């Protein structure tokens, strides 16, 4: 609604360029796409785009972690997963090419932490594996396999043996995989 195609002011653009890992072209493209999403919003004009509209983006449409991504990057008080433009930039910055391993692993941890309690416990891991393997019956793991998998994961990654994987332990596991940085990418 309300054909607002505001241009991004130059000093704001340069500030975004400095504070995120995105290049100028990427920020302008993000602004364009975000404005289009805003225009398609039903209801009064607001600076936030609802989660349903964000999830229509082709990069996020089929991603099993789409809702978690929106919740993690959303700064809305109503916790409804709606994103402002700066939240959207945060999302793209964390998933960009030049983001550091620290940033990516931090946000990956928060995305995988389904109950938002700061650690990955057995329930989080179960939900994570189910998201990875898909929702159809023939690709799910059996309960037995799930238990074995979770216990193995905890045994490998839980260094201080408290039954959960906290951020440092997660980052320790991630640092062993050189592929993580290249697979944790979304480019518009």
């Amino acid at each position, binding site marked *: 609604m309300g054909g607002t195609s505001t241009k991004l002011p130059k000093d704001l653009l340069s500030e975004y360029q400095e504070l995120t890992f995105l290049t100028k072209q990427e920020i302008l493209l993000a602004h364009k796409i975000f404005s289009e999403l805003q225009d398609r919003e039903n209801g009064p004009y607001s600076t936030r785009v609802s989660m349903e509209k964000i999830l229509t983006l082709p990069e996020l449409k089929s991603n099993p972690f789409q809702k978690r991504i929106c919740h993690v990057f959303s700064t809305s008080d109503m916790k409804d997963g709606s994103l402002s433009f700066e939240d959207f930039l945060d999302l793209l910055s964390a998933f960009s090419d030049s983001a550091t391993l620290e940033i990516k692993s931090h946000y990956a941890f928060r995305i995988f932490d389904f109950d938002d309690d700061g650690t990955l416990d057995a329930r989080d891991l179960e939900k994570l594996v189910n998201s990875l393997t898909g929702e159809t019956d023939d690709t799910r793991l059996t309960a037995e396999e799930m238990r074995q998998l979770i216990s193995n994961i905890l045994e*490998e990654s839980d260094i201080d043996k*408290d039954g959960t994987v906290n951020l440092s332990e997660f980052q320790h596991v991630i640092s062993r995989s050189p592929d993580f940085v290249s697979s944790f990418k979304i480019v518009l």
Partner: protein
Amino acid sequence: MAASQIMEMTSSEDEDQDLIELEAIRRPYRAVKFDLTHANQEDLEAQRYHEPKHTNALYRNSWSSSTQRVLSSMPSRSIRFNQSTALSRSTKMRRRRPLSIVSTAHCATDQDVFRGQEDCDDDVTQNEDLLNKLQGLSAGECVRVLREMSLTVSEKRQIRAWVVCWDAGQPLSANRALCCHQFKSFISFLKVLCGGCYSRVSQQKSIKLWQGVLKNISAHFGTGILSYFIFLRRLLHYNILLFLITGLFLVLPQISNPPSSKNKPAATADLWMFTGMGILTDSVMFYGHYANSTNGNCKAEMKLCPENYNIPLAYIFTIGAGMFITCVMLVYRISKSFGRSFRTFKTTSNLALKVFCSWDFKVSKKRSVKLQSGNICIQLKEMLSELSCKKQKRNLYSTFGWLSLHFLVWSICLLCIAACMLAVYYLHPYIDQGSSKVNSFQKAVGLLKLPLVMSCVSHLLPGFFDMLSRVEHYDSPRTQVYVSIARNLLLKGCIFSVLCYQWLKKISGRKNEQNKQQCWETLVGQELYRLVLMDLLIAMSYIILAEFLWGLCIRNITLRKRKLEFDIARDVLELIYSQTLVWFGVLFSPLLPAVQIGKLFLLFYLKKTSLMMNFQPPRKHWKATQMNALFTKLLFFPSFAGALAFVIYTMWRVRPSSDCGPFSNLRSMLLLGKRWIRGLGRSNPSFVWLSWAYNNLVDNPLFLFTLVGLFLAIIYIHMQVLDGQKMIISRLQKQIDNEGEDKKFLIAKVQALNEASAQQ
């Protein structure tokens, strides 16, 4: 906030049961449940004493709500802690200016800046810490640190505004907006002055070639297949660089200053474009055309009249510079990828790694996402079944069978390689340009026989080797990939060595015979040119026949409409082979990189079209980074290093032909360079130091020996340091284990105390 969420999650009966069974699977003979009904301290300690060393995981469900409240506010589980540790890791503590104005009033008004904090005092102290650390940094550093922190953009902007205003000396108050605005406008003015080359130069990505196409490919097929296309693009960059250097400094001056026409007229030949004969023989394409010395007859009308342009010297320097820059770029890339693919000590099973890192976020098409999920499921099931069933011990009979199978396959491969070497040896044409007995067309075809055979062999035989290796059952797919790569390399290396032997024989043979009017350098250049072109033709026909037509058959015949699988390793090795040809040939044919550029463009678009139409996303997970590191190393070590050795040997030891080319009156090409540097001091007094440096540093074996010795000593010292660090890591691991034990103990105590107080 977090604690309330935990309390909402009711612990159901069956979840308890699940967790107990989980323990039972892990340690069937040990005490399963950590019984906390005993509030008695001695009982607890006794129980703990009976527990085995690495005790059970703690069950959250059995903690009381007050314990869980304590647990949830543990620092290691709060996001704020993680952000501040990230900050301390990314900055070193520089000079610390005391922050005197921060007050609780700030906290009250700006509480939304730092999320998730309930305690205002904690907030203030952490604010102070953050601002202190940021103040001591320069503007660029501050921005870099802020960028790497995991805060939202709005928070980062506010922090930066505070730091900037604080640095500008203004108190943080109402005119904060004004001072920031003035500061920002000043900064933007400076930026305009500097012409836009501000701090992010190192991270600024230029508009990359084929960016949209590659994104489409990765959306459908994932990172593994993308790595092939990225490799292709990188080779294109190397070739463009080589072409620019040789083109600007060698070819252009030669074109603008053509030599006086030679005695013999340009012969016509059939298929001249494919054989490189005829018109191309005496063109800038090949070595023989380049001028012998500084050419005096320069036309006055042309603006660029390089009268004093020394073509032979330019020849050595451009080729040398091109190879040197390529070498530096390759080594740089290897060192970068080496750091990334380095693995730490613990490599038991990798389930956690698979679960956390295997999802490829770039894949966005629904079908590909489903396929990816299916693949991950299959891989997880395979890994679990591998873990659960024990590895079967091989008895003598099966070991013997396994060994004999391997021996058989290897001997077949070696026989094939030997057959190819013989074929190359006997098919090598004896070129006699003078004889006109044979029809020109037949001569052209005769010349093309060898490249045809070589290209067919290099395309088809690796496929045959792959089929053989499927018969052998390897333990892991990675071993299979490495073995097939090794066989492929062996094949190509052997063929190349036969070719080099033939060339050297031809060169030395020419010395013995009377000097015919033939340029061996041009002949070698023409052979390499033919090889490159034939490789392109065979690759194109392979794509059309084996991928389009065969893929069409497979799709229509098989019931499940299966598509082909992309063999990344084989295709990348093809690229490496063709690039090796170019590097071998650049000395004799300076425009060969241009041919390679055209070839790579063509291959890219053909492969991309074929990929989209005929191939399915890969079933097995391709460890892209490790494989990329391997391929970059292969590109450097046998491929580039071999070419470099060949070029250096030719320039140093082999006598150039005496009647054509820029070095016709010298014993070796490098002699010209040496003479020039030695003479530079005499002719041009300001360059005496250069000539001195050459004589005493580069040409001096003693100096080189001491340099090498120094490097070896440094490497040895680093190795010792690494050993020491490994020891430290193992000690730290033990320390972490101990801390974990303490943590469990303390949590149990907290629970005990809470229960005791609840009972009272």
